[in-house]
C-alpha cells in the first residue's frame, strides 16, 4: 500500500504558563512512501516523528493536510477504520491475557461480515505467531516473557489483522544492545516476508540506516531529507543531516573557498569548481581521509586507536571546530604513526561544504 502525505501539519496549543504560543509538531509534510517498503522516520527527540506516526495511525487528527493510503483519503477516518497495525514503544501487551489471547484480541473486535470463524482466528493467530517465531509461547503471560519475546508478540498482534500498513514506535529502544541487533534483523525479515508497507520511528541513526529501504530525517517538525540511506549519507542536503548520520560523526572545520580551491587554515586541501569565494563550513567524513606522505592537509597527531580492521587517527588542526578530529583509515595503510605530525589527502566525495549561515549544502 502506497502512503502519501500532503502538506501534513499538526499544531498543539501552547502549554507553558508564559508562552501560550502553539507548538508546530509536524510542519507541512510532503512525502510519498512506496508500496511494500520499510521506512525509517529518524530524528532527535522532540522532532515530531512520534506525532507523525500518531497522525498516520489516526490517534491524532492533523491540523492541515491529507493522508492517503493508496488512493483512499483516510485523513478523517478513525484509527479503527484505517486498518493499520501498530507496535508501541512499551509494546502495550495486555498483562492479564495470554500471548494467544493478546494476538486474538484484534480479530475478536471484528464484527458482522468481517468476523472470522473461531477456527480461522486460531489459524491466523498461529500463522502469524510462527512468522515471528513465538508459536511455542502461546499460553504464557507477557510478564513471563523476555523483552525480545514481548516485542515479537507485539508485532504478531499488529500483523494478525493483516493491516494495510504497519507502524512501529521506537520498536527497539526497550531492548538491550545485543538483542537490538538481532531484533532489527528479525524486523527486516518479517517485513520482507509480509511485504507490508512499514513505517518505524527511531532516534538511532544506525538502526534506521541498517534496515530501512528509505529514511526520512526530521528536525523541528520539518522533513530535512528523504531517500535511500546510502544516498542520504553520501549526499546530505544540509549540515544537520550530515551531522545526524554517521558514526563516528562527521568532522567539522572552518574553511575558505578562494578561486576554485578550498583552504583549511591557509592550506589548500581540495579543488572546488563552481563555488563562489566565501567562508564555508566544511564537513569531512571520518573515512574521507587517506594517509599520504605529501598530503596537503597537515595535522598534529594526537593518538591512534586500533580497532582491528580499521585504525582511528585522532588529530588536531587549527581549523577544526572541535578540539580533536577523527579519521578512520584501513589498518593496512603503511605509515609511520609515531611522529607528532600526520598528513592526509582528502577524498572529494567525502567532503561537504555548507553555507556558514543557512547551513545548506553548497558543494
Amino acid at each position, binding site marked *: 500500500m502506497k502512503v502519501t502525505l500532503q502538506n501534513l501539519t499538526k499544531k*498543539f496549543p501552547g502549554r507553558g504558563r508564559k508562552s501560550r504560543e502553539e507548538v508546530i509538531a509536524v510542519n507541512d509534510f510532503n512525502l510519498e512512501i512506496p508500496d511494500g517498503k520499510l521506512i525509517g522516520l529518524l530524528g532527535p527527540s522532540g522532532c515530531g516523528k512520534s*506525532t507523525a506516526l*500518531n497522525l498516520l495511525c489516526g*490517534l*491524532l*487528527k492533523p491540523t492541515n493536510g491529507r493522508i492517503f493510503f493508496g488512493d483512499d483519503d483516510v485523513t478523517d477516518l*478513525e484509527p479503527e477504520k484505517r486498518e493499520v497495525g501498530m507496535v508501541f514503544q512499551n509494546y502495550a501487551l495486555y498483562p492479564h491475557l495470554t500471548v494467544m489471547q493478546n494476538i486474538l484480541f484484534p480479530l475478536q473486535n471484528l464484527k458482522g461480515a468481517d468476523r472470522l470463524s473461531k477456527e480461522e482466528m486460531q489459524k491466523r493467530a498461529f500463522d502469524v505467531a510462527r512468522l515471528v517465531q513465538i508459536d511455542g509461547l502461546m499460553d504464557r503471560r507477557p510478564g513471563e516473557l523476555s523483552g525480545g519475546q514481548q516485542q515479537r508478540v507485539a508485532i504478531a498482534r499488529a500483523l494478525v489483522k493483516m493491516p494495510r500498513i504497519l507502524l512501529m514506535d521506537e520498536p527497539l529502544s526497550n531492548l538491550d544492545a545485543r538483542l537490538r541487533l538481532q531484533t532489527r534483523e528479525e524486523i527486516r525479515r518479517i517485513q520482507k516476508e509480509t511485504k507490508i508497507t512499514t513505517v518505524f520511528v527511531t532516534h538511532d541513526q544506525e538502526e534506521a540506516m541498517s534496515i530501512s529501504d528509505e529514511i526520512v530525517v526530521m528536525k523541528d517538525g520539518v522533513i530535512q531529507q528523504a531517500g535511500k540511506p546510502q544516498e542520504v549519507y553520501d549526499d546530505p542536503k544540509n549540515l544537520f543531516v550530515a551531522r545526524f548520520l554517521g558514526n563516528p560523526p562527521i568532522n567539522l572545520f572552518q574553511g575558505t573557498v578562494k578561486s576554485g580551491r578550498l583552504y583549511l587554515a591557509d592550506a589548500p586541501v581540495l579543488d572546488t569548481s563552481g563555488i563562489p569565494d566565501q567562508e564555508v563550513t566544511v564537513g569531512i567524513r571520518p573515512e574521507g581521509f587517506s594517509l599520504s606522505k605529501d598530503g596537503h592537509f597537515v595535522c598534529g597527531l594526537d593518538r591512534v586507536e586500533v580497532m582491528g580492521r580499521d585504525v582511528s587517527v585522532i588529530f588536531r588542526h587549527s581549523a577544526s571546530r572541535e578540539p580533536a578530529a577523527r579519521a578512520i583509515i584501513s589498518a593496512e595503510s603503511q605509515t609511520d604513526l609515531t611522529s607528532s605530525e600526520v598528513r592526509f589527502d582528502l577524498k572529494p566525495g567525502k567532503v561537504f561544504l555548507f553555507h556558514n549561515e543557512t547551513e545548506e549544502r553548497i558543494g
Partner: protein
Amino acid sequence: MQSETTHKKTGKNGGRILRVLTYMLLAFWGLVVLFPFYWMVLTSIKSYGAYNSEYVPKLYTLSPTLQNYADAFTAVPLARYFANTVFFTAATTALMLAVTVLAAYAFARLNFRGKNFLFVLFLSLMMIPNELVVITNYVTITNLDLRNTFSGLILPSVTSVFYIYLLKENFEQVPDQLYYAAKVDGTSDLKYLIKVMLPLCRPTIVTITILKAIECWNSYVWPRLATDDPQYYLVSNGIQSIRENGFGRENIPAMMAAVVVISLPLIVLFLFFRKMIMAGVSRGGTKG
C-alpha cells in the same frame, strides 16, 4: 498529546450522547452530595417560626436570620463542645505523632534484639477491630476513675499501628548514607531524627496528622462511652444530645445552625488542603 488522544473517542452522535449522559450522571451525584449541605445552611437561616409554619418545606428563604446561630451558642454550650473537641483533637494528634515517630524510627533505623518479632506483632495488631478492645478500655477507664476527664478521652485514642507502619516505610526510603554521614559528624539519633528524617518525610507526617485530626474531630463512639458529663462532650456527642434533649423544645433551625458550625472547620480545612488530604486518604485512609 495523550490527553488529546483520549478525548476524540468515536465522534459524532454516539459520542455526544454519551458525553451528555456522563455529565448528567456526575451532576446528579453532585446534587445528591451537595443538597444536604444546602438544606442544612438553608434551614439554619430560617427563623423558628417560619420553619415550623412551612408544612410544605420551602427551597429558599426570603428573610434569612442569624438568630439560630446565637441560639445554638447560648441555649447549649456549643462553644464548650467546640473547645473540648479542638483540645481533644490537638492533644491526641500531638501525642500520636510523638509516639508514632519514635516507634517508626526505631523500626526503620535502629537495630536491637527482637525487632523483627516485635514488628510482626505490631502488624498483626492492625487487624484488631476497635470494637473488640473498646469494652475493656471502658472498664479500665471507669475503674481508674478517668471517666469525664480529658486523660480518659485522649489516652485510649492515641495509638495507630497503621500510621507507625506507614511512617516506617517512608523512613526506610531515606538513604542509609545520610545516617552514616550524620554519625560521622557526631550527630545523635534524636537530632538526626528531628533535623533530617522529619523534614525529609514531611508529606507523610502531614498526611497522618491530617487523617488523625479528621478522625478525632468526627469521633463519636469512644467519647460517648468515656463521658456523660456535658462539660466534657465533644461536638459529636454535643450534636447527639442536642438532638435528644433539644433546646427545651424541638428547634430544628437552631439544631441545623449547630450542625453548620460543627461541619465548617473540616470543610474549610479540606478546601485549603484539598490535594494533600485527597492524596493522603488514597494512600492510607479508610472511612471507619
